[in-house]
């Protein structure tokens, strides 16, 4: 055996694939993330134009106004490839399962003050439709985006958002069975407080530049919605005995913290490259952040009362600071 290992060491012809070595600048052992990501999207000539978009090639960088010399600068700081991604999510889901079954078994939802239970059903259950819209947008970016680095991360995000929509669905089942979900959808479709949000989500689905979609969904909308719902609404719920809800939405809080690192890395690398990119990002952010704030205002007011508008303004300030920190010009 010892001899085998020695032979092996002598005979190893190369440490990694040539395309990885070219990127690393030398032939040295590469990480699984690097081997799973770099240059996976085919270059070279394509055979046929898509019948669904004859103006472009199948993979075509000109589907967005953003220009990058190398699309693999959009690396994922989490270094997620399929294996690390699913194992991370399975672990988070295991914790979520425990929380859901704990609350269900102990009938924890019933311990929340009844009027706040109504409030939760009103603000939380329609969010599964927002998540479903986010799923479609992430999927759209995976479809039209350029380079495996960004499109694999958006694929993971697409299934994340479906998963979160289903966690909300399960909270709904605990909080009132199928009827609660049906009612949540009715609210989503008809309640005046939800209509600006539904309009925003539907408008986001038809954004033609996929990078603009990225900014609209992940920075502008999520950047305000997640802290509003999972931090501020949750905090307000504590006064009404809603700690069981906090347990059940822990997944979303952890997820947001994790995914923010990736979103920020993508935007920072994009902004860094050129004035033209910064102009695009600044314009898109200004537009969609305004829309998101308008869409969230009626919900903030409904849940937090008069304090809602101030709370939202505070979140907007923090988001603007975050965007500016990423190199995105934020309008004065």
């Amino acid at each position: 055996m010892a001899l085998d290992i020695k032979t092996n060491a002598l005979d190893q012809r190369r440490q990694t694939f040539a395309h990885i070595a070219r990127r690393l600048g030398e032939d040295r052992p590469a990480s699984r993330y690097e081997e799973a990501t770099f240059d996976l999207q085919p270059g070279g000539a394509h055979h046929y134009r898509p019948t669904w978009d004859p103006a472009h090639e199948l993979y075509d960088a000109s589907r967005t106004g953003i220009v990058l010399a190398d699309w693999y600068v959009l690396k994922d700081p989490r270094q997620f490839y399929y294996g690390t991604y699913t194992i991370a999510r399975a672990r988070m889901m295991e914790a979520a399962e425990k929380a859901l079954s704990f609350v269900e078994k102990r009938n924890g939802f019933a311990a929340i003050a009844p009027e706040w239970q109504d409030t939760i059903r009103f603000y939380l259950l329609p969010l599964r439709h927002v998540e479903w819209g986010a799923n479609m947008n992430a999927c759209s970016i995976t479809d039209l985006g350029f380079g495996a680095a960004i499109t694999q991360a958006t694929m993971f995000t697409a299934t994340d958002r479906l998963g979160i929509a289903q966690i909300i669905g399960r909270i709904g089942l605990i909080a009132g069975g199928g009827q609660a979900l049906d009612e949540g959808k009715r609210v989503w479709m008809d309640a005046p407080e939800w209509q600006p949000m539904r309009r925003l989500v539907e408008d986001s689905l038809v954004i033609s530049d996929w990078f603009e979609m990225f900014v609209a969904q992940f920075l502008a909308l999520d950047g305000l919605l997640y802290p509003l719902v999972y931090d501020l609404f949750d905090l307000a719920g504590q006064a009404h005995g809603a700690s069981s809800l906090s347990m059940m939405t822990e997944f979303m809080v952890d997820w947001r913290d994790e995914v923010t690192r990736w979103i920020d890395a993508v935007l920072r690398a994009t902004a860094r490259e050129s004035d033209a990119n910064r102009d695009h990002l600044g314009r898109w952010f200004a537009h969609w952040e305004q829309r998101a704030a308008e869409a969230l205002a009626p919900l903030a007011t409904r849940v937090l009362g008069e304090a809602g508008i101030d709370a939202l303004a505070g979140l907007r300030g923090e988001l603007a600071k975050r965007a500016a920190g990423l190199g995105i010009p934020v309008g004065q």
Partner: protein
Amino acid sequence: MSVKAIGAYRFAPADRVENFHGNQLLTLLWDDHLMFAAPIVVPVPPSMPWSAVAGEVLPQLYAQHPDWAKVDMGEVEWTLDGEPFEPDAARSLAEQGVHHKSVIRFRTPGLVGLAGAHF
């Protein structure tokens, strides 16, 4: 029939003759000699005389086969794009109707490859 597409869907053919820098493509197929697994395609100027095809192009491609040395050029049965063809050694390909992507398929009577396997 034509493609169903969401918008106008017409693109220039990838292999128009003008893309070949003065050459045109010629496909050659020697029947009963499956040692050459598929028809062979070569770029040739349309002005090339048949004598150059017979004297240079074909031997360069096929001389590895033991049958090639036995081929009597006068006996070869040629077809051009599916029709019987009697090449004129002195005239050019273009003058004899050999166009871009023409197929010249031929058999050599009495020479049917090795081991009775058309190989």
